[in-house]
């Protein structure tokens, strides 16, 4: 469905490599926003009722569905805590990052 995305930051070394106008040539996947996080969500899958609400309300598209369960993508999760706040079964805990 979707074309393969480059995960790398595009570096333009010389003006000859630049497009004529400022335009996107790749995605933002290079930008690992997981580094923004102070606290991280941890899902206790035993208590998970698979309602999908954490997936639904993630502003950072950082909860993905794997084998019918939500999985946090820590590369990008900014640690906002919406998933934990909205989880009806209270199975997501926000825990301190190991520093």
């Amino acid at each position, binding site marked *: 469905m979707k074309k393969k995305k480059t995960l790398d930051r595009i570096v333009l070394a010389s003006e000859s490599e630049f497009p004529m106008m400022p335009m996107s040539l790749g995605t933002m996947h290079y*930008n690992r926003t997981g580094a923004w996080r102070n606290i991280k969500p941890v899902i206790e899958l035993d208590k998970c009722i*698979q309602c999908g609400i954490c997936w639904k*309300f993630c*502003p950072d*598209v950082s909860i993905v569905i794997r084998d019918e369960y939500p999985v946090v993508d820590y590369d990008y999760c900014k640690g*906002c805590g919406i998933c934990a706040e909205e989880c009806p079964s209270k199975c997501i805990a926000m825990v301190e990052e190991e520093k």
Partner: protein
Amino acid sequence: MKKDKTMKLSLPIEEYMGPGHLACQGCGAALAMRFALKALGPKTAFCFPACCWSVIDGPFPHSSLDVSIFHCAFETAAATASGLKAGLEMVGDKETTVVAWAGDGGTFDIGIQALSGAAERNEDIIYICYDNEAYMNTGIQRSSATPYGAWTTTTPVKHFKSRPKKDIDAIMAAHRIPYQATASISYAEDLVKKVKKAKGIRGTRFLHIYAPCPAGWKSRPEDTIKLSRLAVQTGIFPIFEMENGENCVLNIKVKERKPVKDYIRLQGRFRHLTEDEVQRIQDDVDARWARLTKMCGA
């Protein structure tokens, strides 16, 4: 683990917004985009005026969306979208949905002339305003969407905003456009349904999406959904739709409205308000709710 069960997803699973974007933690505008794109699909072209999203999407030469974007001047979203639609049609693309995607400043204030012009001409565009009730991209200055009582950097606590929020929905209704609706990121299914409905209609369609801003509202990032839900449940931001400026339908019927103070106490921007001032907000919401429900025949 109960492996036999499947996830119950209330929204389309397709994502057209990728991670790595530059929205703040708990950003309502990011969610608004994610939901809208689930309804709009890949055949979409956006016009972004200056707003949070002109940064959120990412810097040159990168973008976090899988659809086309034309960044345009602050006050021009509706005009640029009018031209983009006309241009696409002239080169044979009658399929792409053209969407002006603007914040409240770009809609209520600087962009209202172009918006009014496009709506009067009934341009074949969807105009979506994600409303976070101030100029958040420039650092929380008041806009005409800022509500009474709110602190911003240009309405300091000792001189908080004394005028009510501009009623953009009534202004748009006066243009008698084919379709307009309000939506909230907390009622994602309703939001997606409305964007899909708008996509199926020709002419100017206006969607007003409530999108809390933790940085500007001085609220906790995790409260973003809760706040937008409370805004609906208190009647501060009612969820309705209209056709041709008439036939107003209340989509989220709130039987027992919650007191506005439940909503206000979660936000630092209202912390300075006295009980009398909070009551004044309550009275205003009550009056507006009465008007709206009467208009909706509810």
